[in-house]
C-alpha cells in the first residue's frame, strides 16, 4: 500500500495538445480517490503516467516519497484495470490470473502459484470457471478476472480506468459495492477514473474533478455537491442538471454585487412549486412539459425566458400550461462570478 504524490505533472503531446497541465495531488495511503471529468479532460493520461505507459513532459511521481517517474511499468508493481478489461483472450481464467506471477523474476513454484490463484478465485467467486477460456466469460466475470489478475501481484497501488462503464445496470451496482468492500478489506490505495459522476459520488472517499487537464476541485462527495468551487463542478456534479439563472432575477440589485455580474445556481430538487403569487414565491413560471420518471417527475418551466427544471412528486403534478410560483430553498442557492466562474459567498 502506498501514498501517491503527483507533483506539477504535465503532459504535452507532440501535436502540441496539453493533456495534463501542472497537476498537483496527494492521494493518502489506503484511500479511494476518484478522478472525475468529462471525456478528454486528461484523466486517462494521468492514469497512464502513474502506471508508466506514458512519460510525463515534466513533473515527478512519488510512491511513498520515492520518485518512480523513471521506472518502466513492470517495475512499479502497479495494478491496472483497463476500461475494456484487456483480458488475455487466448488464455484460460487461471492463466490470466497467474500471468503476473508466471512472468515475475524469480518465478514462484507452480504449487505456490496455484494456491494464490485459488485464493483470489475464492475472494472473487471465480472458483468454478478457472479453466474456462477467458474470452467466453460474461462481461461481469471478465471484470472480476481483470481485478484478480492485478490483485495477485499485490500492487503498491490499484488504478481502474472506468471499469464498470459497459456492465449492465444491476451488476454495476453490485460491483460498486464489491469493489468498495475489497478496498476497505485490504486497505488498498485505489485511483478510479470515471466520467459518471453518480459512480464517483457513490464510490470514492475523495473526488478530484478535472477539466481540460486542470484540477477543478478535490474534496469529499458532499463538498462537491453542496459547495462546488466553480460553475463547472456545479454543473457537472448532481444527477439532475443544475439550473443557472442570472442572479439579478432573484436577488434584485444585490445580485449585481458591487459591479460584478453573477449567476445563480440551484438544483432542480431544491425548488418547490407553489400556487402562483403565493407568499415566498421568489419567481413565477409557466409549465411547458412534464417528464414522468416513475418515482418522480421532471417538470420543465419557462421562467422569464429561461428554461428551469424542477423535480416534482407524481402526487401533485401541475398541468402543461399552468402558471406557478417557484420557491428556491434559501440555503441551497449558489452564486458564481461570471468572469472567473468561481463560487462567490451569497
Amino acid at each position, binding site marked *: 500500500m502506498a501514498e501517491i504524490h503527483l507533483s506539477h505533472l504535465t503532459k504535452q503531446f507532440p501535436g502540441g495538445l496539453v493533456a495534463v497541465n501542472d497537476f498537483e495531488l496527494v492521494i493518502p495511503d489506503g484511500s479511494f480517490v476518484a478522478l472525475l471529468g468529462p471525456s478528454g479532460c486528461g484523466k486517462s493520461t494521468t492514469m497512464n503516467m502513474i*502506471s*508508466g*505507459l506514458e512519460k510525463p513532459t515534466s513533473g515527478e511521481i512519488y510512491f511513498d516519497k520515492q520518485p518512480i517517474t523513471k521506472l*518502466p*511499468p*513492470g*517495475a*512499479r*508493481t*502497479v495494478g*491496472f484495470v*483497463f476500461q*475494456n478489461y*484487456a*483480458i*488475455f*483472450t*487466448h*488464455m484460460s481464467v487461471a492463466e490470466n490470473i497467474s*500471468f*503476473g506471477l*508466471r*512472468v*515475475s*523474476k524469480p518465478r514462484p513454484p507452480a504449487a505456490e502459484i496455484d494456491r494464490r490463484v485459488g485464493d483470489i478465485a475464492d475472494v472473487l467467486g471465480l472458483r468454478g470457471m478457472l479453466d474456462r477460456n477467458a474470452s467466453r466469460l460474461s462481461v461481469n466475470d471478465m471484470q472480476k478476472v481483470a481485478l484478480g*489478475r*492485478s490483485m495477485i*501481484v499485490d500492487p503498491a497501488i490499484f488504478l481502474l480506468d472506468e471499469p464498470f462503464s459497459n456492465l449492465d445496470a444491476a451488476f454495476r451496482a453490485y460491483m460498486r459495492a464489491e469493489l468498495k468492500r475489497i478496498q476497505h478489506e485490504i486497505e488498498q490505495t485505489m485511483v478510479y477514473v470515471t466520467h459518471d459522476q453518480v459512480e464517483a459520488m457513490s464510490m470514492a472517499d475523495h473526488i478530484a474533478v478535472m477539466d481540460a487537464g486542470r484540477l477543478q476541485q478535490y474534496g469529499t462527495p458532499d463538498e462537491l455537491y453542496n459547495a462546488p468551487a466553480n460553475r463547472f463542478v456545479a454543473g457537472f456534479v448532481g444527477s439532475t442538471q443544475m439550473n443557472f439563472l442570472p442572479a439579478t432575477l432573484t436577488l434584485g440589485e444585490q445580485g449585481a454585487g458591487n459591479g460584478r455580474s453573477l449567476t445563480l445556481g440551484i438544483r432542480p430538487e431544491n425548488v418547490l412549486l407553489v400556487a402562483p403569487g403565493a407568499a415566498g414565491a421568489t419567481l413565477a413560471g409557466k409549465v411547458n412539459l412534464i417528464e414522468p420518471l416513475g418515482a418522480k417527475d421532471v417538470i420543465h418551466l419557462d421562467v422569464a425566458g429561461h428554461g428551469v427544471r424542477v423535480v416534482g412528486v407524481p402526487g401533485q403534478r401541475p398541468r402543461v400550461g399552468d402558471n406557478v410560483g417557484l420557491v428556491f430553498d434559501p440555503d441551497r442557492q449558489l452564486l458564481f462570478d461570471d468572469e472567473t466562474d468561481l463560487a462567490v459567498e451569497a
Partner: protein
Amino acid sequence: MEKSVDEHNVRQAPKGRLPNFGGRSEKSVAALLTAPGQLVMLFIVLFPAVLAIYLGFTAWSPTSGSDVWHAYEYWHWFDGYWEALNDGSFWAALWRTVIFTVVAVGMEFLIGFVLAMLFLKQFPGRGVLTLFFLLPMMVVPAVSGFVFYMIFQVDGPLNQGLSLLLGRDITILWLENPSLALWSAMVVDIWQWTPLMFLILLSGLVALPEDQMNQARILGANSWHQFRYLILPMMKPIILIALIIRAIEVFKVFDAPYLLTQGGPGDASTTISIWMYREVIVNSRWGFGSAAALIVLILVTIAGAFAVRPIEAGQESTLEELERGDTPSAGGVDPFAKAGTEA
C-alpha cells in the same frame, strides 16, 4: 406538415412500372445474381472434369489419327492410371514439388516474420521501405525467372559478387549443376513471395490488441514473455492462413522455374506442373496426361479440404469483429496510417 389531401396518392404503386425481373423476390434475384458465376464454374470445371475422366481411360492423343469422338477405340481402362502410378518420373516430380513447397514456404515465413517484427515499431522511412519490399511481389513471375536466369549465369553478378567477397574466383554452376538447379528455382520463389508473407504477418502483428500488450508489461512481462505468451499464440490463425495460401500457390509453380531452367538439367528441377506440361504438350500423351492430372486433382482436393477451414474462419472472425462494431484491427499502431502512403 398538415394532413394534405394528396396524402394517399403516393401510396398506390404507380402504373406502368418497369418489369423488375422478379426484383421483388429474394429467391429469384439471388438465383439471377449467381447464374453467370455458376455458368463459368460449369464451363471450366464440370465439362473439363468429365472430358478428363473420359480421356483418362484411353490412350488417345491428337496424333493418333482418329478424332476425339472415337477416342474410345483406344479404351484401355485403368492402364493409363496404372502407368502413371508406376511412372518413377511422376512420383519424382511430385516429391520435388513437395520439397520445393516446404522449403520455399518455410523460408518465406521465417524471413517474413523477422521483417514483420522489425517493421512493427515506427522508424524513419518505414513507409517507403515497406513499399520497396512490396515490389518483388508485383513482378510478373515469368520475368522473375528471367531476372534470376541472368543473375545465376556462370559469369553473372552472383558469382562475381562472391568472388569479390571471398577473394577467390567463384564459378558455381547454379543452373547447370543438377543438385543445385532445384534450390536455385526455390530462391526465385522465396525472393518473389517473401513480401506477401511479410505483409500478412505485419497486418497480424499490427492488429494485436494494444491494451493486452500494455497490461502484460504492467504485470512485469519483458519482451520475450510478450512474444511467447501473447504474440505467438494470438498470431496462430493468421500464420495458418498465410502458410496454407502460400502452399497452394507454390504447389502449382510453373512460370519461374520454367524460364529459369525449363525443369532441367534433365529433370533436376522438374516440378509436377512442368512434368505435366512436358507429357501433355511436348509429348502430347493426352490420355496418360489426363490420368496423371486426375491423380493430382484428387491429392489437391484432399489437401484443400483442410485448407478451407482456416480461411473461412479468418473471414468469420473479421466478420464477427465487424458485427461487434469494433474495427477489424482492434488496436495497435498501424504503420501505414502515419506513413501516409495512401497512393
